[in-house]
């Protein structure tokens, strides 16, 4: 039986940061006035977000009593080697909602960098903390934060498969789909409202497009044979898929509303795992036309395919950064499956993990982090990593196999 409504997560995720980066901005997150009594420790969520990005290092601020109206003693914070400071408060209102305010300080120059206030119900407190982390990140790095984005992933537990939607820190997971048969290859639509995925519920692989908020879904590819590997074009109007309807596994594009597929290429080999480039003009994909699986690219408008990976004899699961500069993929090295990142401009490749069962890399929408699944100490886990591999965070899970993560887009505010 397939069930579609949102189900609260059974697993709680923890963030563990390992590794040391070279350039990290030191920031103090003072406990928000009132957070000790509040349902969520706001400053702790903000600090975990910023640390997981790899670009910030938290400075100890325990015991301080500040809020967004305070005039902090900059000399004191400079002495603690903090370059920035966040202060704030969380107040419970008579109607049960919460009033959250914060302010960001440039400690070095003694400048008020601004702040915001929010009034939300208890269920949105974590989202507010993520928005605060986004504000801080953007002010101090000049880049957009991904802390308010969502990830999708699949678990298998007790013979049941679930497709989960969680915050980018792994918390607040809700099941979009629960099934007795496998679910693979979830893919977020560019507007963040839908997930495409492959389901085996009808005892062959078919592709659904599933509206996350309503649970409504439609069958987008149910052709003869196997249907799999959905990937969205950046404008959300087209999906690339792998179909075997004409024999072999070949690439097609299909309108997001369904209809007749258009074959992309003809090859006598396996072509699969398509992903669109950020400008929507190129599709990267896996093909074993050369004898072993390698990553290629082909213009969407038509033309010849060009090989992209040349090291190793088994390269699969491509993910392209939104700016088109980087390619993440899985390479089999001596029997181990390891995450690699290629600079597409120079062709330089780096292996960035020390685990050996990596799978399914997916770029964050700001191109600064990659989420992937792996095994650590015998347990499957989701990890995020900076592109150089120096800062990794484990989104630890409890029970069941965790696989197939996909990082969702920036959400409209």
């Amino acid at each position, binding site marked *: 039986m397939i069930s579609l409504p949102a189900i609260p997560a059974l697993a709680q995720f923890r963030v563990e940061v390992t590794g040391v980066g070279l350039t990290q901005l030191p920031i103090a997150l003072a406990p928000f006035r009132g957070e000790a009594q509040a349902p969520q420790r706001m400053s702790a969520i903000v600090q975990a977000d910023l640390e997981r990005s790899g670009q910030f290092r938290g400075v100890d601020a325990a015991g301080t009593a500040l809020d967004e109206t305070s005039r902090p003693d900059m000399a004191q914070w400079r002495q603690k080697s903090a370059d920035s400071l966040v202060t704030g408060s969380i107040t419970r209102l008579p109607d049960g909602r919460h009033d959250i305010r914060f302010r960001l300080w440039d400690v070095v120059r003694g400048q008020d960098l601004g702040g915001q206030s929010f009034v939300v119900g208890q269920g949105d407190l974590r989202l507010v903390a993520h928005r605060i982390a986004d504000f801080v990140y953007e002010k101090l790095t000049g880049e957009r934060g991904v802390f308010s984005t969502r990830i999708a992933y699949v678990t298998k537990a007790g013979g049941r498969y679930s497709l989960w939607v969680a915050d980018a820190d792994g918390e607040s997971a809700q099941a979009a789909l629960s099934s007795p048969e496998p679910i693979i290859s979830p893919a977020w639509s560019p507007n963040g409202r839908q997930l495409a995925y492959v389901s*085996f519920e009808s005892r062959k692989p078919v592709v659904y497009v599933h509206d996350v908020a309503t649970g409504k879904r439609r069958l987008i590819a149910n052709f003869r044979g196997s249907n799999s590997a959905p990937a969205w074009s950046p404008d959300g109007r087209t999906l690339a898929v792998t179909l075997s309807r004409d024999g072999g596994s070949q690439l097609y594009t299909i309108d997001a509303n369904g209809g007749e597929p258009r074959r992309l290429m003809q090859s006598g080999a396996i072509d699969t795992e398509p992903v669109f480039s950020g400008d929507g003009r190129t599709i990267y994909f896996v093909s074993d036309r050369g004898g072993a699986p390698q990553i290629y690219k082909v213009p969407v408008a038509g033309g010849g395919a060009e090989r992209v990976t040349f090291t190793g004899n088994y390269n699969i699961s491509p993910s392209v950064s939104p700016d088109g500069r980087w390619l993440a993929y899985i390479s089999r090295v001596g029997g181990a499956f390891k995450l690699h990142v290629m600079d597409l401009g120079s062709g330089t490749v780096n292996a960035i993990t020390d685990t050996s069962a990596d799978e399914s890399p997916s770029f964050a929408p700001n191109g600064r982090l990659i989420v992937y699944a792996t095994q650590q100490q015998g347990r499957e886990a989701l990890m995020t990593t900076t592109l150089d591999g120096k800062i990794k965070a484990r989104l630890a899970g409890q029970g069941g196999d965790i696989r197939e993560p996909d990082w969702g887009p920036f959400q409209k505010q």
Partner: protein
Amino acid sequence: MNQPLKRLSIALTVAALMAGCSSGVKLDQPPVEDKTATSTAGANGANSGNTGQNGVAGVDLGQSDREGAGPVGVSRIVYFDFDSYSVKPEYQSVLDAHARYIKAVPGRKVMLEGHTDERGGREYNLALGQKRAEAVRRALGLLGVPDGQMEAVSFGKEKPAVQGSSEDAYAQNRRVELSYR
């Protein structure tokens, strides 16, 4: 009674007789016909029938195929070597029996379900399983099975027959299953 069933009931009778010689089973026990055999028939098959000593499991050849039907007493699994996507000669007689079964009734359809061992990526393995299913489809096509009576699909590495990371587990998972739904 058609040829395969006649042969099967003779085989079961012989097996019952032979079992009787070694273990004291009554010789007048009627043979039980196993309609849904997924392994080759033998003494075990005869005595595993759930119809009791006096019952007879009648076979009505006029009924439409139930789930799990297929040529009686013929294996429904074709195994593949590592990194191999062609059907080994030893499966020729198995595919022969399936081909005859499918061709016997125009409405019959077989699903060819391809699988891989657990090593490697999910989508690439889905495509490799598809390759195996299509190899079996080609072999059946050469035996005269019309294309419209076959569908080749893949489960990749998602539905292993055997859990584990041993060579033995891998070998049992590299397979195509012929499924009559």
